[in-house]
């Protein structure tokens, strides 16, 4: 078909693993996963797909790579699963490496394509089956695997030790107290209304976000807590590498930490994938229909604080803004409307992107793709040109992104395409516009 060559990227996670694989080892894993871990969905999806290609236009990778058919959702399934099914017992290691490249680094499992398939085939799920097979053969990009190893050893994504965690919280409490007298980060408080959890990059590299939430909680007079022990990190990269055993452990720790503190509900920070893991991928694997205690995303929480008047808006944010709607909370939890409402309540000049809500394009970073690290950054940024165009058309200066993966992914797109825009979490907007009563000021 005369398609351009896919640039070769060196990644020890793939290049070294390939040396130790044999067709026999691969066949063993493939047969086990296909026979005992998949059932109706997998089998019916494979039988039902009529190869119509109508999913193609859903994929930002396809749209951004000059409609290269290798990047269409069904194209990715063809290059991986169709081959896997066709020659189960004679798959060569180099093929598995290709599978990992496609499933781990060129698909964000954002589920936009399942909204475009007339049959509603969950193509992202099919690519997750590929990731599962790769992960069971240790064929995972090295940076992504490192985060999984960290989860497995420390129960958080970034090798944060417990003393560092507690120390960071105390430091941020000090910072917050410098602004608001009553700001506290209550550790291990039993029976609090809110158990607040964050992803490990917050204490590691974005600690000020924890200070911000301490101030917001103080102004809104929320009865809240954070755990001093494992389970504080709500992120879950094992969910994306395909290491579902570790995924299940991580999710169980998170929910059990909240249960241990007898919290009434969990509020999760501004991260989409973490919410997906806690709200459905984790529970699904653990055999829970629903999470054991109520669980809401930060957007839902801020909506509650603003609409009930616990946070009042002193002045609206003036700079023109648009929004990046994170797949895992908008397509994944229907929070699009609430997100718009809190933006309307806090920002003066908002331009919606097109397409938007459930149909918004993925940031290109989620689904574990950004966690595959620097080797894959070029292809990731190239694979989301369509997002750059979409954002540029809004002519906004600030992009509100209530998700960590989106945040980093959009930053890369802004610099890659020289958009001259900036990214902010919603909490950062809120910090600028909320009314702080004088008696609370330090």
């Amino acid at each position, binding site marked *: *078909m005369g398609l351009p060559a896919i640039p070769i990227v060196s990644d020890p996670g793939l290049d070294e693993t390939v040396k130790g694989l044999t067709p026999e080892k691969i066949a063993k894993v493939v047969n086990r996963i296909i026979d005992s871990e*998949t*059932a*109706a*969905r*997998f*089998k*019916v*999806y494979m*039988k*039902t*797909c*009529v*190869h*119509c*290609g*109508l999913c*193609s*236009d*859903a994929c930002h990778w*396809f749209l951004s790579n000059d*409609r290269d*058919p*290798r990047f*269409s959702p*069904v*194209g990715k399934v*063809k290059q991986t699963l169709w081959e896997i099914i066709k020659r189960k017992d004679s798959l060569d290691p180099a093929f598995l490496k290709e599978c990992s490249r496609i499933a781990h680094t060129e698909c964000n499992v954002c589920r936009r394509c*399942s*909204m*475009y398939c*007339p*049959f*509603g*085939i*969950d193509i992202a799920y099919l690519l997750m089956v590929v990731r599962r097979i790769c992960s069971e053969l240790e064929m995972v990009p090295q940076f992504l695997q490192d985060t999984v190893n960290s989860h497995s050893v420390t129960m958080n994504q970034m090798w944060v030790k417990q003393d560092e965690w507690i120390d960071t919280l105390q430091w941020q409490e000090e910072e917050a107290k410098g602004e608001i007298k009553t700001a506290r980060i209550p550790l291990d408080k039993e029976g609090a209304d809110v158990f607040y959890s964050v992803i490990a990059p917050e204490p590691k590299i974005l600690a000020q976000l924890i200070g911000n939430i301490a101030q917001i909680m103080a102004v809104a007079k929320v009865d809240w807590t954070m755990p001093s022990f494992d389970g504080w990190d709500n992120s879950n990269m094992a969910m994306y590498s395909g290491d579902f055993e570790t995924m299940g452990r991580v999710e169980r720790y998170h929910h059990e930490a909240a249960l241990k503190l007898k919290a009434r509900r969990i509020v999760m920070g501004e991260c989409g994938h973490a919410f997906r893991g806690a709200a*459905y991928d984790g529970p*699904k694997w653990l*055999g829970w*229909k629903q999470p054991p205690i109520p669980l809401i995303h930060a957007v839902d929480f801020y909506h509650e604080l603003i609409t009930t008047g616990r946070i009042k808006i002193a002045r609206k944010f003036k700079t023109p803004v648009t929004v990046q709607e994170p797949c895992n909370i*908008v*397509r*994944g*939890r*229907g*929070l*699009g409307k609430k997100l718009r409402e809190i933006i309307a309540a806090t920002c003066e000049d908002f331009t919606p992107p097109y397409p938007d809500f*459930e*149909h918004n394009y993925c940031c290109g970073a989620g689904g574990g793709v950004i966690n595959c690290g620097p080797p894959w950054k070029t292809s990731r940024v190239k694979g989301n040109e369509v997002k750059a165009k979409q954002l540029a058309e809004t002519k906004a200066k600030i992009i509100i992104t209530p998700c960590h993966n989106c945040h980093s992914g959009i930053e890369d797109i802004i610099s890659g395409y020289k958009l001259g825009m900036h990214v902010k979490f919603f909490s950062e907007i809120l910090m600028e516009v909320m009314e702080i009563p004088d008696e609370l000021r330090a």
Partner: protein
Amino acid sequence: MYEFVSGPLVWIAFIVFVSGMVYQFVTMLRSARKDKVIYPYMSLKYSLRSLFHWMIPFASRNMRDRYEVTIVTFLFHICLILGPIFLLAHIAMFAFAWGFKWQTLSQVAGTYMTIVVILASLFLLLRRLMMPEIQFVTDPSDYLLLAIAAAPFITGLAANQQWFDYQTTVIVHIITGAVMLMLIPFTRLSHMLFFPFTRAYMGSEFGAVRNARDW
């Protein structure tokens, strides 16, 4: 030959079709139990909501974006399913054999519906040949399945218009029809059976679990 294809072969085809569909249906229900998420997540309300948005032309975004495919595929499926059921010649066969009949289409309507199926098949073929993203995922079986679906209509039209020897054309027509019926449960033509269920599950997961729209 005619006696065989118009009698026993039709019986065989229907028996294979019906039992094949039942087999696939039961297999699906069984393996859905193994796929632990399906039964707990299934919701009638959201299944119907999803089916509604994907069975009404242009009620979903992709159907509006790809309007030409929407128009052609709706016409194709409607004519392909309803045409043969209400075709005068088919009902006459049943009436002769069993003595009962039902509402029929006019001769002209039957012919037009057949032509629509043939033209739509041609459209689907050209689309497959011309669009790189479809060509990339096409294998010989895709052409074969399209041919299997179109063949009874091409031969039916040929018989109706008496382009060739009538008796032979009718025999070929019945054989192609029987082949299509028998293959539906065992090939990707089984999307006829699975469509409502894949749609219903996705609708349920989007609606009941994700609180979002899937159209």
